[in-house]
């Protein structure tokens, strides 16, 4: 199967600041691809280069098998991180206008937008000015703009920010539905727990470099055993070989350094008289754990991981 988007060794600087140093990945139809990384890692800049908003300093982008053209823009739906609609216009005409710019004719756009507005509980707000809408409604309106023209490539940047749990669920369902319809979806977020259930494959970007790239399940398996979960009383801080300790719902979650096994931690705990352990198990690592480990291991290892 041919990749819908393929980016290769992208780099981009703004003045002296190098926002993206080396990012490569491919996205295929029928998958949700996670573009992950902390704030300021270079995710949005990578997306902008992918969409030809920025010209890369180096590297190349192949989209639908070639360079970006005006005709290809109709096949792409983009929810930018910078949310914005014309504030002083009414909701429905705004959505219709933006849909026609994506190549729909006006009557078709009206029909589809009415359906979407109903589905997203915005129908009774359609005659309101955009500035009168709440942040959540605004967000949902932009999701309509992203999807109304039935694009083959969907790029959503932080799609859940500003949404309550009910609407988060709704948007997740919509994204999953689009995947089942065979669309290629790129989802960028810094909230890694959001993508664990949703994404098939991910690329992890840190300081402008792709440090991890592959299937979520495979990555988890590769990093399994590098975290433990335990319950009990006492001081669990400061154990040797532990990168990070965090309290999670009454249990302790420890990410381990490379080369440190769960057994080592178990023995170290046994030597501490001050602690009482009720439960001890090897954790299936969350992407958060994986990320922390990959980043803390430094450049050399991460490049190796990126190649894997």
């Amino acid at each position, binding site marked *: 199967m041919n990749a819908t988007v393929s980016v290769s060794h992208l780099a981009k600087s703004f003045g002296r600041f190098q926002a993206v140093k080396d990012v490569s990945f491919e996205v295929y139809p029928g998958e949700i691809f996670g573009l992950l990384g902390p704030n300021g890692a270079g995710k949005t800049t990578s997306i902008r280069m992918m969409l030809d908003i920025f010209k890369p300093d180096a*590297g190349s982008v192949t989209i639908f098998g070639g360079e970006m053209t005006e005709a290809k823009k109709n096949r792409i739906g983009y929810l930018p991180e910078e949310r*914005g609609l*014309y504030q002083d216009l009414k909701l429905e005409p705004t959505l219709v206008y933006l849909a026609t*710019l994506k190549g729909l004719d006006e009557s078709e756009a009206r029909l589809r937008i009415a359906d979407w507005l109903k589905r997203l509980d915005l129908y009774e707000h359609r005659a309101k000015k955009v500035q009168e809408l709440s942040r959540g409604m605004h967000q949902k309106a932009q999701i309509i703009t992203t999807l109304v023209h039935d694009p083959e490539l969907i790029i959503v940047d932080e799609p859940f920010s500003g949404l309550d749990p009910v609407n988060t669920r709704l948007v997740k369902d919509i994204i999953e539905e689009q995947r089942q319809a065979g669309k290629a979806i790129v989802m960028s977020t810094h909230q890694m727990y959001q993508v664990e259930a949703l994404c098939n494959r991910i690329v992890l970007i840190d300081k402008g470099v792709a440090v991890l790239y592959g299937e979520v399940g495979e990555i988890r398996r590769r990093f399994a055993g590098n975290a433990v979960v335990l319950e009990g009383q006492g001081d669990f801080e400061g154990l040797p070989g532990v990168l990070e300790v965090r309290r999670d719902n009454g249990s302790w979650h420890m990410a381990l350094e490379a080369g440190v096994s769960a057994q080592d931690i178990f023995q170290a705990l046994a030597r501490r008289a001050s602690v009482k352990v009720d439960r001890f198990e090897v954790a299936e690592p969350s992407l958060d754990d994986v990320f922390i480990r990959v980043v803390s291991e430094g450049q050399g290892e991460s490049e190796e991981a990126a190649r894997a």
Partner: protein
Amino acid sequence: MRKLWLIAKREYLRRVKVKSFLFVTLGFPLLIVGVSAIAGLIATGGRDSRPLGYVDLSGVLDDGVLPALAEGRKAFSQIEAYPNADAARVALEEGLIQAYYVVPRDYLAEKEITLFYGEDQPRSATTRDFRDFIRGSLVAQQRPEVQETLSDGLAITIRSTDGRRVMSEGGVPSFLVPFVVAFFLFFAISSAGGYLLQAMTEEKENRTMEIIATSVSPGQLMSGKALGLIAVSLTQILVWVALLGAGLWIGGLFVEELRGIELPWDMLGVTVLYFVPTFALIAGMMIAIGGAVTEQQQGQQVAGILNMLFILPIFFLVLIFESPDSPFLVVLTLFPTTGFLTILLRWGLSSVPWWQMVLSWVLLSVSALGSIWVAARVFRIGMLQYGQRLSMRAIVEGVRERPASRERSVTRDREDVIHA
């Protein structure tokens, strides 16, 4: 192409549909009509209907010419003779007459007369009537053709050597029309800058730039907006020309002087020919500014200065009146930003040579294309710079950047790798 129309249509409709458009388009001519009407009323209104007296000691005046003078005038002052200054003074004091003239015995030698009036000086229309009376009396002895020539003056026709333009001095109001059109354009140009700037900063302020940029090309966006706004301005001008035509026609029913003024269609043709590239030039400049600044207010200040470049000729009106073909005005004619208004202003007073018109149009069109080309580049690099100004260096780099730079930097990148 379809998207360009969509953008143009939206831009046009949302400008034309708002109340302020109607207000400016209809209000501006109404304001001018209103002001002229008030000025006219002040000038002609409150005319004293009482007669004007005179005492003729020279024997020059001949009241036999009065009926002929009054004929063909709407309101000719009633003029009464008094035998001596005392009788006239009594009549003035009793309020029977508004004023009286004394024409001294030696009038033909000294050519001086004296006006006596009570509290208010007579209106200029009244004194003009009396002057006509004197003039009429003086030429009464001449043959009728001579009389006519003396009272109406000579009709001189000025013809340019290429025979292209003919101007008759008698048609004074006709040469005013270019000025009226020029002033309308002056307002159109001044408001266009603001509109254009707003159209560009709108996408930035509403954060819609990324959605738009991934739907249409910067070229489509800019030409669409410019096209929509050109249509808005043309609509405005058409409404104004229509109102001017209607105003001249309706006014002609009441005011004799307005009859026979014809709209100079050749000039209106030149107007349309120049309007599009001039507007494109403004558009390019405004888009470049709109792309480089973040907020409208910031851009508005720069735009104000830029507008000056276009309306500069208005400040040289006196020069245009006195010497419409002076070298300085030729320079203004050829300079892209000032060419349009200068040509219109010179139109009424002189004949602008062909070579100047052609050259100035070519220069204007070339710089208009150039400005849009530069604007597209500035726009491309500035479109996502929120909250920060583009540095002069970034603009210059963006403008000089060639499409090939991508490959070039890739190669450079590889070289770096090899060196490393």
